[in-house]
């Protein structure tokens, strides 16, 4: 499947092709389950690509494979033309400044025994930034994600879910990466918090030109932040294209099913959608 729509930037940043990831290894290899069955996706500089699907579709697996957190069975992941599929930990260090992550669960994604300042400064210090420079950078980061400057000396448990997610975003931004993998960054948050975090992510992208690989189960969320969308189902991409097109006039039956299943916050329109859904399911 090739892409018709032009990406935001033309320069390719991340290129994943025919990626296969299996669960289980060693003696039981024969019973391995395929988590990804030859997935290809690309992200251009400054672009958001949404990856949508239900649990078990492989969307999170894809994100983790890109980050080097999972071993890849076959296929390639290349970053700015460099093959990073099987990089060792030491070799990944140069990549850490390029590629970062924001996870779903704002509770387990921050070390409870470190202050916010320590959390934000750690990646900087490991990359050799001096302690004084790291300190001033932390202040800039806190400001960038809309947290007060005194947040640095506090512990993660003193913050709410939305605020923690801001800290996690600040940590991802610390090294000024070119790509952030966002794994369901808003699905654990309240609705009014959700949109604030999404707007924050979009605003940061507009200012810094960072690209997002945005994993979510929610078509509305993906439509709101993404330029392009890929729909995953059982370890494969079943549909891809412009975000608005895919989320309003889907071509693949699964995407249609997904769209029809999401209830609309309007009693009358939802009643219509229910009928539409019944019609789609019936035939």
């Amino acid at each position: 499947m090739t892409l018709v729509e032009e990406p935001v930037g033309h320069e390719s940043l991340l290129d994943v092709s025919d990626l296969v990831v299996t669960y289980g290894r060693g003696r039981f290899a024969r019973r391995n389950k395929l988590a990804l069955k030859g997935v290809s996706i690309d992200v251009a500089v400054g672009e958001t690509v949404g990856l949508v699907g239900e649990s078990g579709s492989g969307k999170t697996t894809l994100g983790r494979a890109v980050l080097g957190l999972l071993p890849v069975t076959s296929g390639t992941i290349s970053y700015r033309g460099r093959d990073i599929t099987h990089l060792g930990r030491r070799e990944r260090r140069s990549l850490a400044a390029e590629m970062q992550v924001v996870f779903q669960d704002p509770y387990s994604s921050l070390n409870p025994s470190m202050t916010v300042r320590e959390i934000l400064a750690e990646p900087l210090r490991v990359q050799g930034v001096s302690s004084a420079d790291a300190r001033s950078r932390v202040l800039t980061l806190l400001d960038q994600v809309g947290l007060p400057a005194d947040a640095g000396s506090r512990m993660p448990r003193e913050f709410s879910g939305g605020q923690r997610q801001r800290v996690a975003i600040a940590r991802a931004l610390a090294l000024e990466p070119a790509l952030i993998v966002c794994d369901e960054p808003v699905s654990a948050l309240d609705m009014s918090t959700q949109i604030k975090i999404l707007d924050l992510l979009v605003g940061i992208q507009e200012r810094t030109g960072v690209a997002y690989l945005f994993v979510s189960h929610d078509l509305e969320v993906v439509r709101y932040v993404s330029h392009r969308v890929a729909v995953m189902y059982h370890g494969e991409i079943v549909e891809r294209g412009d975000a608005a097109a895919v989320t309003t006039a889907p071509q693949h039956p699964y995407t249609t099913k997904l769209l029809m299943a999401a209830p609309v916050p309007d009693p009358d329109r939802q009643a219509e959608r229910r009928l539409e859904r019944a019609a789609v399911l019936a035939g």
Partner: protein
Amino acid sequence: MSEQTITTSPAIGQSVARQGAFRRMLANPMGLTALVVLGVIILVAAFGPLLLWNDPGHARLDQVNSSPNAGYLLGGDSAGRDILSRLVAGSRITVLGGVVSAAVAAVIGVSFGLAAGYKGRSFDLTVGWISDLVMVLPSTIVLVAMFTVTGPNAVLVMLILGVMLAPSFFRLTRSLVVQVRGNLYVDAAKVSALPDTRIVGRHILAVIRGPLILHFVLMTSVSIILQAGFQFIGLGDPNVPTWGSMLQDAFRSIYLSDTAFVWPGLAIAVTVMALLLVGNALRDALDDVDPKAHQARKRAAAAAKAQRSTVPARPLSGAILQVDDLVVGYDQADGEIKKVVDGVSFELNAGEVVGLVGESGSGKTQTALSILKLLPTGGRVVEGRICLEGQDLGGLDEDAMTAIRGVRVAYVPQEPMSNLDPTAKIGTQLAEPIRVRLKVSRKEAAERALSLLEQVNIKDPQRVFDSYPHEISGGMAQRVLIAGAVSCDPDVIIADEPTTALDVTVQAEILDILRNLQGQRNLAVLLVTHNFGVVADLCDRVVVMQKGKVAETGDVRRIFAEPEHPYTRTLMAAMLDGRPSRRERTEVTA
């Protein structure tokens, strides 16, 4: 999770509250006393021998088995040596023995535990085997055997005991690491390409240190007792005074001096007791257990009995469920009541679906649980009235509530899987309440259960009936729970976020099932949810909650079309539905 509220996570790491835990420990009188006693013992061990006026090795014939006197304050032993001097001199080897053994055990156990837990696989397996092997060796026999080879050697005993105790540290550390290593901050550290040593030190060891420190304290007391035991059976160095050997000496001459055995025995007991109490206080401080919390719970129970003095002014309406001025609170350690629901009133009519909507912390679930009297420990209805068909539920005891739950008011929970018993088949879990509640035969109950499974659109009811919970999906489990909820023909169903944990396609199916059942049986449904799409799909009326209070109540169409309360408007404005897509927004601005 709203941005305003400050919440605490239930994660393990919560316990590593910097100096917080230590300060909490000092606030606990028992902990403070034990710590002071322990401090004195350590000071005596460190400096006591320097201040001795009687040489602990010097024997005076006139003091053999003497009673306490001016020269020997605690009397003399069987060789005429000063018991007090020997106690003080022996404290050093006792404390040192305990700490050194525990330290050796900790260093070996923790480092291997960290490595095995973090790296896993074959290293974990190998070290696990070795640890098991050391664990099955009887330490007493090993030390007795060693004594016959090397003779008395206190240092060697400490070291070997340390090695024997190491597996307990290894096991504890390994299991803690396994719990912590799956945390996302460890993954984030890996993405930042932090070296393994830093990840293990800063992101794993720092988080699990609390339980390890506690274990160290316990192991110190264990090794003090074990070493005193060895000395008592004569496996110590006869030239060095120790509490264990003093005890042995005193026992041999117990008919000549009946108090001599008291002093070393007391010294061992006090030291070990102080260590154990410090350990207990440390554990409470790490778990953040307030010693006053127990009293607060007692007060809560008493208050719960004495409550129900307030009679709300509102008359009973014809509603099937009526909630008036409900206040739900949690008793705090300082006697205050933390209100999570504050003056909530609404009613639910027969055949009506009411949505209880709000963000996390709004008190919607607390309201729902208080109707069923299923509030978590510490929580209670402080004021207000809950009436089911005109009957005030407030005065009912647990037996009366059991007769109501499931039969008149049923409950559908948020987490379907954790609400099924993993050890029993679905069919049993479904049929048993029917048999007991409706007093029908086993066979008939099973038939009813099968027909219920069919009614919740399960295609192969018999297969699900014969399955265990782990063999079915989350969506299937929720169908089973809905079938269970309607099994005893209730009039009211309280559904707490019934679709939140499910995929969107499964959610749509569950909503269909709920709608059909509600229509067929004319059920009154109280639907707790944060999702306005679900509200629009199912509800007739909506109660919007904010911070424990009702912001707005109204017909579902009115709430969506013309929200009156500013909070409702904020929620509506935060909805993504109908907003232009990313590219459309960019085009407008460009």
